[in-house]
Each structure stands twice: as C-alpha cells, then as structure tokens.
C-alpha cells in the first residue's frame, strides 16, 4: 500500500510521543513567559479575531501597565487544539492563559495542579462576579470551584427547521415528542428526509442522546455520570434514549446515507439548506455556518425551536444541552498572575461583548441582553439568550464534560449504536464498562 515515506510515520509517531516525554523530564521547574509577557493559547478559528482585539486593547490599557504585563496571543489551528494544548502544558513552553471548554476538558490540568483556582478572585471582583450569567460561569468550573472565565458566545443545541418546507407541508415546529413523530411521518410520506445528520463526525449523533436522556430522565442522570459514576449509564433513561434513537433510525428519520455525511465539510448543512432534509439538531453555530454558505436560506427560511419534551419524561423542555461557552483558564505556573487576571477582566467588558455580538455570537455576559439589537439577527440572538437565561439546567456536551479517556470510547459506542453495530442494550452495557 504506502511505501517509503509512510515508514517514517512510525518514527514520527514515536518522535511525537517521545519528545513530549523528553520535554516533561526537564519541564517541571520554572514559570513560562519571559518577564512581563504572558502567552495565551486560543482556538484558532474565525472567531479568534475578537480575542486578537481583546489582547490589543488590554496591552494598551492602564491595567496592563499596573500589573506590569502584556499578553501575546497564539492561535492554534482548531483541530489540533486539544492535543497541542496537552503537549504544551507538559512542557516549559506552557501558555499562561488558555482557551478551553470547562468541565472534563480541564479536569486533568486541575488534577495535576496546573490551574489557578479563580473562585475567590471572581467572588471578590465585582466585574467578574456580576459580569456573567451564573449558570454559564459555574459550568466553567469543577466540583463547585471556578477555573474559568467565559470568553466566547453561548452554544446551546437547537432544533433548526426549514420554514419553507414546513409551510409547504403545513407543519408546526414540534413541542412534544408525539408531534415530532407525526411530522416525521408526514415528511417521509412527502419523500423528504426529516432530519439532517452529519453522522461521520459522530458528535452530531451524540447531541440526540444528550437531549433524549435529559428529556427522559432529567439532567441528574448525566450529572451522576459526569461526576465519575459509570453506573449512571445504567439509568433506565439512557436505555430508553438509545431505544428511541434506534426507532428513529429504523424509521428512516435520518435518511439512508447519514453515516457518510459530515458536518465539518459542509455535508449536513447543505442537505438541510437545500431542503433535502427538513430539520437539523445542531449547536447555535449552525446559524453562522448557514449564513456563510447559504446566506439566503439563513436569513429567510431558517427557523428554530427548543428540543421537544417527552410525555412522562422527567426533563423540563427549557433544559438546554450544548456548550455553555468557552473559557479562559490561568496556568498555575504563570509568572504574572495579576496581569493574567487583569486580562480576564476584559472579557466582561462592554467593548468585548459588543464585538462578540457583531460577530453573530451571543455572549454569556449579563450586560448582553440590552445590546443584542446590534446582532446581525436580533431575533435569533434574543431567542438564544433567553433560552440559556431561562434554562433550569445547562448540560455540557458529554464529550466535553467527561475526561478524554472516557469520551473517546464513548463516541465510538455512540457511532456503533447509530450504524447498527450494537443494540441499545449492548450500548448501555459497553458504556457501563467505561472507566
């Protein structure tokens, strides 16, 4: 099959593994950054331009002078971000401040004593304390302590629908599961795939289970799992959710080829925008994705609603799953903690909030509500803000909430369920075995 160059992969893989090892051997001492310059790692997508401005603003501010520090931003290409961060955090070149998803994504760093506990800092700082929606702020922490400050838009998972298709077939967005099944049946009769699904990326499949478990068993079911109790997978709600997914699949709700469709490469958004599928369960970023690729569709035909409730289920229809937002955390080995914290404060500022809104994001700052009229789509922005503000529970995406050594096999099991390689019962028993 491959040939000479591929043989180097082994060498390269081993080099990568080993160089990481080599670096830690000499990387246990010393702070990072030289003198007053702090390094900040950010997820290097389009939205990073807001962090670029934030850094410039901070470096020119009186706060930076007072703390005797400036920040240098390092944009890390998106797909490499978690691995690059992990490698850097074990090395002498660790960032002082870094972007993360809260929850399980920072647990290993917390356990290794690499995070600054921000609980007291936030409590004693009026800007940070009252600057953010409390539920979002707390989702950035672990075990009731704060390890992060919100710095991007909120990303709740929303049920999007195609208004034109719905009008054509005289459908209303569903609020109960029976209505959803009814819509499903009508759409199939009209030869339209009810739901777009980017199954080859796997995480879009996970969103269905996240909402179903919440609606059937309430947020406590996953809470227990998130806190490390693998027996929580044995909760009847998980099995019921898996069975419900299986019924949807067997019923053809996702069409036939969903396992070959990706989200990242634009497959699923295109199926949805072109009316081949009528609905799409996706994070709020679906709006900006559509705006970028199919602006007409995004502006005129894109509808949105909450995930329906399930009759007899324990979950509130107002509960939300998804990513509350992203966070800045501070490395415990930073050479200038005061400057780092002064920098975090910029994320609560009005200027920062306005920039996020102009970018189409909905900030998790408490002052955002009054500024949302400036959003490219105020109606959608307000819906989203309201949705998160009113949510009795905001469950962090499972793959971000649990540690990476659990989320990787978990995603494999989710995929097996969706492609029919395992039954709902096998799915549950495989998950119970995850440690």
């Amino acid at each position, binding site marked *: 099959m491959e040939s000479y160059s591929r043989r180097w992969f082994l060498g390269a893989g081993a080099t990568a593994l080993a160089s990481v090892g080599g670096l830690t051997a000499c990387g246990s001492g010393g702070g990072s950054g030289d003198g007053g310059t702090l390094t900040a790692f950010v997820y290097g997508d389009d939205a990073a331009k807001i962090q670029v401005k934030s850094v410039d603003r901070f470096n020119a501010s009186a706060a930076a002078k007072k703390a005797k520090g400036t920040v240098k931003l390092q944009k890390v290409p998106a797909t490499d971000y978690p691995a690059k961060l992990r490698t850097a955090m074990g090395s002498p070149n660790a960032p002082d401040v870094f972007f993360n998803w809260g929850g399980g994504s920072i647990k290993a760093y917390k356990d290794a004593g690499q995070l600054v506990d921000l609980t007291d800092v936030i409590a004693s700082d009026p800007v940070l304390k009252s600057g953010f929606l409390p539920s979002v702020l707390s989702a950035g922490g672990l075990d009731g302590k704060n390890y992060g400050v919100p710095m991007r838009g909120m990303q709740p998972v929303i049920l999007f629908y195609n208004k034109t298709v719905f009008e054509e077939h005289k459908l209303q967005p569903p609020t109960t599961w029976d209505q959803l099944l009814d819509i499903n049946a009508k759409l199939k009769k009209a030869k339209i795939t009810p739901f777009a699904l980017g199954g080859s990326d796997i995480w879009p499949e996970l969103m269905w289970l996240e909402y179903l478990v919440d609606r059937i068993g309430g947020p406590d079911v996953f809470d227990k799992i998130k806190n490390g109790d693998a027996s929580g997978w044995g909760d009847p709600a998980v099995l019921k959710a898996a069975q419900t997914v299986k019924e949807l699949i067997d019923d053809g709700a996702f069409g036939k080829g969903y*396992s070959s469709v990706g989200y990242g490469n634009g497959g699923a958004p295109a199926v949805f925008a072109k009316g081949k599928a009528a609905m799409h369960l996706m994070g709020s970023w679906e709006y900006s994705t559509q705006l970028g690729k199919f602006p007409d569709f995004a502006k005129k035909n894109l509808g949105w609603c909450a995930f329906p409730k399930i009759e007899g289920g324990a979950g509130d229809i107002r509960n939300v799953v998804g990513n509350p937002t992203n966070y800045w955390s501070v490395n415990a080995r930073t050479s200038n903690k005061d400057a780092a914290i002064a920098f975090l404060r910029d994320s609560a500022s009005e200027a920062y909030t306005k920039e996020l809104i102009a970018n189409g994001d909905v900030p998790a700052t408490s002052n955002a509500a009054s500024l949302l009229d400036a959003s490219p789509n105020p109606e959608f922005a307000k819906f989203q803000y309201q949705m998160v503000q009113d949510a009795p529970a905001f469950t962090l995406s499972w793959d971000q909430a649990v540690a990476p050594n659990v989320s990787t096999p978990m995603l494999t099991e989710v995929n097996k369920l969706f492609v029919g390689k395992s039954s709902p019962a096998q799915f549950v028993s495989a998950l119970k075995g995850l440690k």
Partner: protein
Amino acid sequence: MGRPRSAARNRAGRPNAALALPAILFFAFFAVAPMVLAFYLSFTQWNGLGDPRPVGLANWRKLLNDDRLTQSLTVTVVLTVVSWAFQTVLSLLLGVWAAGRQRNRAVLSAIFFTPFLLSSTAISLLFYALLDPNFGIIHADTLGTTSGAFLAIVFVGGWQFIPFHTLIYQGGARQIPEVLYQAAAIDGAGRLRQFFSITLPQLRNTATTSGVLMIVGSLTYFETVLILTQGGPGTDTAILPYLMYQAGFKSYDFGYASAVASFLVIAATALSLLMVRLSGFGAMRSTREGM
C-alpha cells in the same frame, strides 16, 4: 555457487563508513532514541502532564487482552492483502506497458504519476467529499457500511500509490535485456507467452521490492483512515496506527499508545525480516541468468 562477495571486493570502490556518520546520528536522534523512549513509556501510565508513573507490564497486559487488538490486526491483515493484490496487478500491467519508449507513453506516465505527488491528507479529504451520498459521485452510504468503508480505503490507497509502484515496475521492465525478447520472437513466442515467460520472471526482484514496500507501508497506513472513516463504522476499519493515535492523542493515554506503537515496531520489523528471508530479497541474485 554462493555469493561472490569477498572482503576486498566489498571495500573496493565503496566510501568509508565515516561518511555515513551524519545519517547515522540523524537516524539515532530522530528515530532510534524516540523509539527507545516510546518503549520506556509503554511501561508507564502518563496523561501528558506531570511525570510518567511506572506501571510495569500493565499496558502490555491490557494490549494483549484488548479485543480491539485482535480486530485491528485482522483488519490490517485483510487490508494489506487486498491492497497488495489490487495494487500489484494494476501497477505491474501499467508499468510493463509504460516501459515502452514511445513518446505518448512517457507523457501519459508523467501525468499518471501526479496522484503520488499529492499529500495523503488532501487526497483523503477529496475522496471524503466525493463519497458524500447527497453531493458526491456515488449516491450510497459508502463510508457507513463495513465493506464500503473498507473498499474506499483500498481504492484511495491504490489511487495514490499505484503510480509509485508503476514507476518501480517500469524501471524493472526497462532493465530486461531486449535480446531475450528477440530470441523469443525467433522461437515463435507471442506477446502473451513473452510476458509470462520473460517479463514476469525477470520482474521477480522488482515485485519483491514493491511488495515489501506495500506491506510494511500498509502496517503504518493512517491519514486515509483518520479522514475517511475515523476507524468506523463502529471500529470496523480501526487499524493499529489509528488505535495508537486514538489512545495517545484523543484519550491522552500515552502509556498505552506507546505499547501499541512498540507492538507495531516489533510486528513491522518481524514481518519485513520474514519477507526478506522468504523472498530471497537479501541475496539479490541477478535476474539476468544465462547472460
């Protein structure tokens, strides 16, 4: 008759060993040392932060009891055999055809060689898009079924590497002395007979070279699987290197990933030694017997 290789003859006209020193140092630093470190890491538990904690044979025991190892070995073996057959047959035929000196063949060979110049990642992304059931070329759930995903990997690998092996076969075929064909023609042998009685036997060493490269390479096949299938559907195309990547850079279980990596090194080394032994590749006898 053994190999006519005396010490004196070997020394004559060959450069001093010291000239290999930069290469040896480079290899030691970037290949051997990391491999040794990875082997050491396979006896530890390490999530990338802090210091690796020695755990003895735990990772190896886990590896040898891991169902995924058996599964990925099976997938690897089947993938290797099918790819080898697919690529060898096509590149042999193309290579022999391209060995002709006509101008049009030279031009076509050059064009045909292009896929090999593209990066595996780019090629995989291209085919990933082409295999989209709604907007691609095949309106079926190709990557969602085990056989579809498997054939897609074999095809994409072939598409990329057949040109390279064609080149090897072309070179090999051009080395075959013209007199053999002339003699055969005088004896009344047709084209087909010439192909099976002269070309094929004369390409024996070429086939071994190409085969060893294909087989050892397929043990470390990676990007195509990562991009096209992510080891899926389920774990049906999760080959060993993918397992290693997943353990290391998704689960941050570097100890276990190192055990998988070390296993790969051992398996690949053993396999290539075995192939060299069985094929007589090491002896490198001339194919021009009777000349």
